[in-house]
């Protein structure tokens, strides 16, 4: 046995570690795995209908959402038709002067104009029910993480790798506000939309006939 392990250590170590880690994550999150609303089940459910990834950009008709009343710390959601993880596929936090901090694969956590949220067929502006100071601090936290790494599978723990929702979730979590309404190991944009901490300021798309 010892001889076998020594000879094949390089081959067997990662399968063993993978099994151990999957079990450990499952063990630490049994309530998430038991929750039928968890984002992984939403994703798997949508895959049955051929929906994979963030949806079809080319099928989007755009929207006419107004950013007139937007405030620093507001969360903007966007969604393309056929998104696998819910109505919305993308999230950003407004940091002022017409700009948002958001996460993309090719540019990481980055500063962009809010205007591009009109390209989505689904859009919403969410306001967090908290103090101005907390909202400014959340926006500031997001700005300080500019150029950080984007990784689509970023789990909630840690502050080295992000996706578009985790950076916003963490920015508010530090202020003592948990915006994840599902309590998942990942945060989906729809989880912000359903959060009791949120007021919906504006929205466009199929869900309100806009």
């Amino acid at each position, binding site marked *: 046995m010892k001889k076998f392990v020594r000879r094949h250590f390089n081959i067997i170590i990662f*399968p063993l570690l993978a099994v151990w*880690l999957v079990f450990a*994550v499952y063990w630490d999150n049994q309530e998430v795995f038991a929750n039928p609303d968890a984002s992984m089940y939403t994703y798997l459910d949508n895959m049955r209908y051929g929906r994979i990834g963030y949806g079809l950009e080319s099928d989007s008709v755009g929207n006419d959402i107004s950013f007139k009343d937007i405030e620093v710390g507001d969360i903007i959601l966007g969604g393309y038709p056929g998104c696998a993880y819910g109505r919305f596929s993308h999230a950003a936090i407004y940091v002022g002067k017409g700009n948002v901090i958001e996460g993309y694969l*090719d540019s990481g956590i980055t500063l962009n104009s809010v205007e591009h949220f009109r390209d989505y067929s689904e859009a919403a502006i969410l306001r967090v029910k908290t103090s101005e100071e907390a909202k400014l601090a959340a926006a500031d936290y997001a700005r300080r993480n500019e150029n950080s790494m984007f990784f689509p599978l970023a789990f909630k*723990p*840690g502050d*080295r*790798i992000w996706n578009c929702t985790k950076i916003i979730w963490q920015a508010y979590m530090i202020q003592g506000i948990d915006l994840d309404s599902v309590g998942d190991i990942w945060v989906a944009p729809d989880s912000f939309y359903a959060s009791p901490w949120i007021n919906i300021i504006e929205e466009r798309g199929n869900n309100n006939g806009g």
Partner: protein
Amino acid sequence: MAGNIFRLYCIHLFALIAVAVSTYYPGLDIAMAILYIIIIGKEAAENGLTRGKSIITALSLHLPGFVLVMITLAGISQGDLSSYAMFILQYWYIPLIPLISLTSHVSLSGMPLYNGVLLLLPVLMSLYYYIVWELAKNKSARPAEE
């Protein structure tokens, strides 16, 4: 040589799963990525191949990486292929993502440094395999020369 390539693919694919899940435990993911580099180095040092076959073996493991980098750099826009290529490239190099993430907050000409590192990984990791093989070969040849 085919056996060596098969071993490398097995190691890489299971490391991909293990490292992806280990990112749930920040810190452990970095240890796992270092373990991956050590094991790939061990494979190079102990492969018993000639120089040419070692180079082919290294390039074979990183062939998907080279193809994805070329698609990304060529900016092939057919069906938005280039953005998907970058996406798949990041998944292919999950075993090294925790280490690359240490370059966070650094940008070059407005682009995050980690993207540049990601695009260089097929070359860097092929070189790593070859250099370890060369060092191991020289080390094993030294006593005989003395």
